[in-house]
């Protein structure tokens, strides 16, 4: 079952002409002409669609909260910052099918009553930026954006906001601060962006992949969507699969896949190599050792393996776990925004310890400090970045993957 990639031709971008031919913007027409905003939100709610950025928050609920704020300026933001290492789903979506994201945004803005929309785009995604800019221009030309869209009373202005290199700006409140011309540091939550977002106004922030599902749901109905795959995580998901597999790349599949199924999607383990472990969800994702491949990643809160943003990285015996540990912590230390002490200093100290582990100087002091440091990062940082930085190392210790650490 494919929703997001069904019309993709080999390495080509679906321009407006091709997108129209595949039924593009029919859902927007349907929404604007035949459905009230309440009806749109009801369909999305019925679909059970959950946020694809990693959080898995129900989209219908988010939209309803913002819809209920009456008589004020509201904003609609598409989060296309995608800087979790190992993920390339939103970037590829924007490069291949930019209108699918835009259509979801326009329908979403109509549903919640927002007249100003932004795409927060990772500053390094030059190709995606070009495709989106072209697509936005086409939309203005065809009256799919601007005033009185398709003859309705709905106006929407949409612009791209380019990030400038900061992982934390994928976090919605940091992203909002960034657009406001501030440092991209996260805000205290609550209040959530739905209540107090961009410039203090109610704001929806949705991931690009989430938005790419909207047109299908409006056309085919929420109920049909809710029956695809698993009932607690309905719909399909894009998986960025890489590492020791035969055909690394982007794959779309429903969410009843076990870890083993996901590896098979990409052609199985690369010939001649043996699987050592798998990481799901980027550098902040859980580690799945060889014996646990029959687990199913999902958005369900009681799932052992959160699906996160859907990246799958397969490690073989060629990969040195100590070097991988260092790669993870280097990333978090570099991207820690510095706002709170436990994260700024904690990631720095953890990096020092893991450097010593890698060059053979891990000592008794390090062994004693490590659990305290992990606890501090896990429990006391201002935003989830600190927690993210220790997910993988906790698993490495839990599964006794490095002798010195146990």
């Amino acid at each position, binding site marked *: 079952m494919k929703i997001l990639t069904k019309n993709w031709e080999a390495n080509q971008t679906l321009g407006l002409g091709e997108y129209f031919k595949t039924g593009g913007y029919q859902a927007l027409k349907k929404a604007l002409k035949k459905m009230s905003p309440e009806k749109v939100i009801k369909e999305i709610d019925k679909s059970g669609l959950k946020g694809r950025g990693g959080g898995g928050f129900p989209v219908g609920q988010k939209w309803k909260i913002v819809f209920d704020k009456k008589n004020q300026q509201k904003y609609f933001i598409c989060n296309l910052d*995608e*800087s*979790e*290492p*190992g*993920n*390339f789903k939103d*970037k590829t979506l924007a490069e291949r099918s930019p209108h699918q994201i835009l259509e979801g945004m326009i329908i979403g803005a109509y549903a919640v009553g927002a007249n100003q929309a932004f795409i927060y785009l*990772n*500053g*390094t*995604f030059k190709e995606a930026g070009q495709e989106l800019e072209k697509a936005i221009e086409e939309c203005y030309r065809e009256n799919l954006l601007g005033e009185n869209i398709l003859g309705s009373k709905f106006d929407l202005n949409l612009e791209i*906001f*380019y*990030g*400038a*290199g*900061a*992982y934390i700006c994928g976090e919605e409140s940091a992203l909002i601060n*960034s*657009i*406001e*011309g*501030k*440092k*991209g*540091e996260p805000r205290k939550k609550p209040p959530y962006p739905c209540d107090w977002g961009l*410039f203090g106004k109610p704001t929806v922030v949705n991931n690009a992949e989430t938005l790419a599902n909207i047109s299908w749901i409006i056309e085919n109905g929420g109920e049909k969507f809710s029956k695809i795959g698993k009932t607690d995580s309905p719909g399909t998901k894009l998986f*960025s699969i*890489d*590492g*020791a597999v035969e055909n*690394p*790349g982007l794959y779309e599949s429903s969410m009843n896949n076990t870890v083993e199924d996901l590896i098979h999607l990409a052609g199985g383990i690369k010939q001649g190599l043996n699987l050592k472990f798998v*990481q799901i969800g980027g*550098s902040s994702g859980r580690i799945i050792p060889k014996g646990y491949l029959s687990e199913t990643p999902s958005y369900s809160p009681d799932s052992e393996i959160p699906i996160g943003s859907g990246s799958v*990285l397969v*490690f073989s015996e*060629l*990969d040195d776990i100590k*070097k*991988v540990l260092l*790669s*993870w912590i*280097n*990333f978090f230390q*570099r*991207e820690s*925004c510095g706002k709170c002490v436990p994260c700024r200093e904690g990631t720095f100290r953890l990096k020092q310890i893991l450097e010593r582990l890698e060059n053979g100087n891990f000592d008794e002091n390090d062994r004693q400090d490590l659990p305290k440091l992990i606890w501090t990062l896990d429990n006391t940082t201002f935003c989830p970045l600190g927690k993210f930085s220790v997910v993988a190392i906790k698993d490495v210790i839990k599964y006794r993957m490095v002798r010195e650490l146990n």
Partner: protein
Amino acid sequence: MTIQRILLLFPPKEKNILRAIKAVNEKFGWISDEAIGKIARYFNKSESHIFSVASFYDEINLEKPAPVVIEICDGANCQTKSADNLIKKIESFLKLKVGNTNRNFSLNKMSCVGRCVEGPVAKVNGVIYTQMTADKVIALIQSKFGY
């Protein structure tokens, strides 16, 4: 184009602050103290505010960069494709430790840019190169920059 001319492309609204900083950085390669002052006055913000924003983001330079800036992705995906070896080889060719700058070169690690399948990934003066080997990086800086 002068800083003032670049600023005039952006109406003085808050949503244009980072955009203007990026544009000035792109044109001159970095944001000088003088530029910070001009941007601050244009947007009616304090210099410390503009400095805090400019210093926060990786793409913005607060010092004049070296003529050739080499960045290597050390993300876990690129690491499975031996990014650490690539870095070591370039370090020994340039006689420069990663994280440092000399008269001609700056060598740094960078975060994932989403081209994982084609890794290891490097960026030279802002342009992304994929499936990099040390030989390719060296050939590139020799042919393109004459070092």
